[in-house]
């Protein structure tokens, strides 16, 4: 079995993963794919930052990291008349279980991220930038440095980019095994050389970010999408998807499918079609459950997903969130108690420990799910889980606490009978398959 990850040719109208072979990641290859055309045109036309932001706003591009915040709006929050440095940060700390798209972008199309960042720096008035890369993907970190060196050599980075009066320096930096650093303010703390403890918001990074300076942070895929938007226009991007859900999105499909991998499709594509691209269910088994947006998002029953389209609004209407686009597929042989046990262990393991409700609550949730899974649960444990989850949600500095609690609530809501069966019969409703 070899990595086919994004070379399967089963994308629909791809933008970011279009034409990639694994070997064509260098600068010359990127330029053959119209790379850096958008940057050249923007500088040659002397477009104003407001014009660039307006185009991105028109595209309805929403942040691809998980929160789905409108990108153009975020860029417009940067103070204009601020003296001294302003920063631009790329969040490539991809560690949301089920999500593995940014790794493919970084290793197979790194210049799309660099070009997107230079354009964003111009629009937001940033003077320097950092790409913070997940510590677990070291070859990608090293490759991104090679791509940066190429971009500097060609005049796309550094002083007076392409002969203009615009200057921007970009560096690469890395984490070393802390999920929480994917939270944007924890990431800033990490770049500052500290533990990754999320900050209170407000102030938001646009006012007080890296080293206390105005800072814009976007996800890798978000930046990689920007050059296409400037080349083809915001309207063309919206037209690819749906109103308020512009463009294509890369979905990382994992779990019980025939061909796990990354699939770039227009927002609004039916889930059933995405599942078909991934080769359908492994072994022809029946679909039971799907987490549509990375492990922090609520799980949905398979039949609900089969009637849902893959865009922000449709998935929200179905009761979950599009999140990072990490689609975890579970078949009929999977025990929902066991699946939740593993996820709850993850949040227990990764809580930064700063806020008491999350630090204590995540461990509490894990221990209770663990005892239900191991035949030691009591019927009032279900109420206890709900109560602990409810006492975490909204009571922590960052969204991690909600992320630990929401899967518990959703598994209980969607598959309560399975938990009751475990408690009542001290064993699993489905045969142990793994």
């Amino acid at each position, binding site marked *: *079995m*070899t*990595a086919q*990850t994004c070379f399967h040719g089963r994308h629909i109208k791809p933008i970011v993963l279009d034409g990639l072979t694994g070997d064509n990641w260098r600068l010359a290859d990127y330029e053959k794919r119209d790379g850096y055309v958008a940057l050249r045109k923007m500088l040659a036309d002397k477009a104003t930052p407001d014009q660039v932001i307006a185009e991105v706003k028109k595209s309805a591009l929403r942040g691809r990291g998980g929160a789905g915040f409108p990108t153009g709006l975020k860029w417009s929050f940067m103070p204009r008349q601020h003296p001294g*440095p302003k920063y631009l940060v790329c969040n490539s700390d*991809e*560690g*949301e*279980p*089920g*999500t*593995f798209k*940014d*790794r493919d972008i970084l290793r197979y199309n790194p210049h799309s991220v660099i070009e997107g960042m230079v354009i964003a720096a111009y629009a937001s008035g940033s003077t320097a930038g*950092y790409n913070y890369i*997940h*510590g*677990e*993907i*070291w*070859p990608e970190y090293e490759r991104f440095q090679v791509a940066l060196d190429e971009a500097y050599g060609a005049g796309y980075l550094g002083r007076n980019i392409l002969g203009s009066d615009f200057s921007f320096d970009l*560096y*690469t*930096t*890395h*984490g*070393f*095994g*802390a*999920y929480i650093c994917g939270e944007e303010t924890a990431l800033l703390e*990490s*770049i*500052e*050389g*500290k*533990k*990754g403890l999320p900050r209170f918001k407000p102030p938001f990074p646009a006012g007080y970010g890296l*080293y206390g300076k105005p800072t814009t942070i976007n996800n890798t895929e978000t930046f990689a999408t920007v050059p296409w938007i400037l080349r083809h226009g915001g309207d063309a991007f919206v037209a690819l998807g749906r109103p308020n859900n512009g463009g294509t999105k890369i979905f*990382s*499909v*994992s*779990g*019980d499918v025939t061909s*796990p*991998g*990354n699939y770039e499709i227009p927002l609004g594509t039916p889930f059933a079609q995405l599942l078909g691209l991934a080769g359908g269910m492994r072994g022809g088994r029946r679909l039971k459950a799907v987490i549509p947006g990375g*492990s922090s998002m609520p799980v949905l029953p398979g039949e609900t997903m089969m009637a849902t389209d893959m865009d922000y609004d449709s998935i929200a209407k179905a009761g979950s969130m599009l999140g990072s686009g*990490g689609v*975890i*597929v*579970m078949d009929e042989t*999977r025990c929902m108690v066991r*699946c939740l046990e*593993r*996820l709850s262990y*993850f949040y227990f*393991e*990764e809580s*930064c420990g700063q806020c008491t409700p999350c630090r204590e609550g995540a461990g509490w949730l894990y221990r209770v799910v663990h005892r239900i899974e191991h035949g030691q649960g009591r019927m009032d444990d279900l109420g206890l889980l709900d109560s602990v989850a409810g006492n975490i949600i909204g009571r922590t500095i960052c969204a991690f606490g909600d992320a630990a609690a929401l899967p518990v609530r959703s598994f209980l809501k969607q598959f309560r009978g399975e938990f009751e069966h475990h408690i009542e019969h001290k064993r699993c409703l489905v045969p142990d398959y*793994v």
Partner: protein
Amino acid sequence: MSALPESGETLSAEAWRQIDREVAKYPPQQKRSAIVAALAIAQDEVGWLPSWAIEAVASYLGMPPIAAYEVATFYSMFNLEPAGRFKLTLCTNLPCALSGATRAAAHLKARLGVDFEQTSSDRMFTLQEGECFGACGDAPVLLVNNKRMCSFLSDERLDQLLDELRRSG
């Protein structure tokens, strides 16, 4: 290279050069931004992070030793005690578990005669349970000494990997 701990131990000149390259990425007054990278460089050289290495790096970056200890203990890829020649970190998170990581974990434990967080009796392998590497499509995945990712690990491929590492170790 300002700090030589009492033991006289320090990193190699090459390691300090690498650390200098990291420091150069940040504003002059923000040298401590390089601490994660500098500790990773130190760990690559020493094999783990003894206190002299943490303190030497802290001193070099002009930060209190306790601030460097905080970082070393916060990020899970740092080894705070000596590990085996090869640290094998297997992701067992849900997407990987759905694609064979549970089987791979059982196979590794049986072959090495250790549980997670243990080192084999010949000091060759330390087995660790990892959290998401962001490579779920390639499951099961494991990292060898943090930096080399091995993918699609059937039992057969795991055996090949262990043989290869034993020969090279």
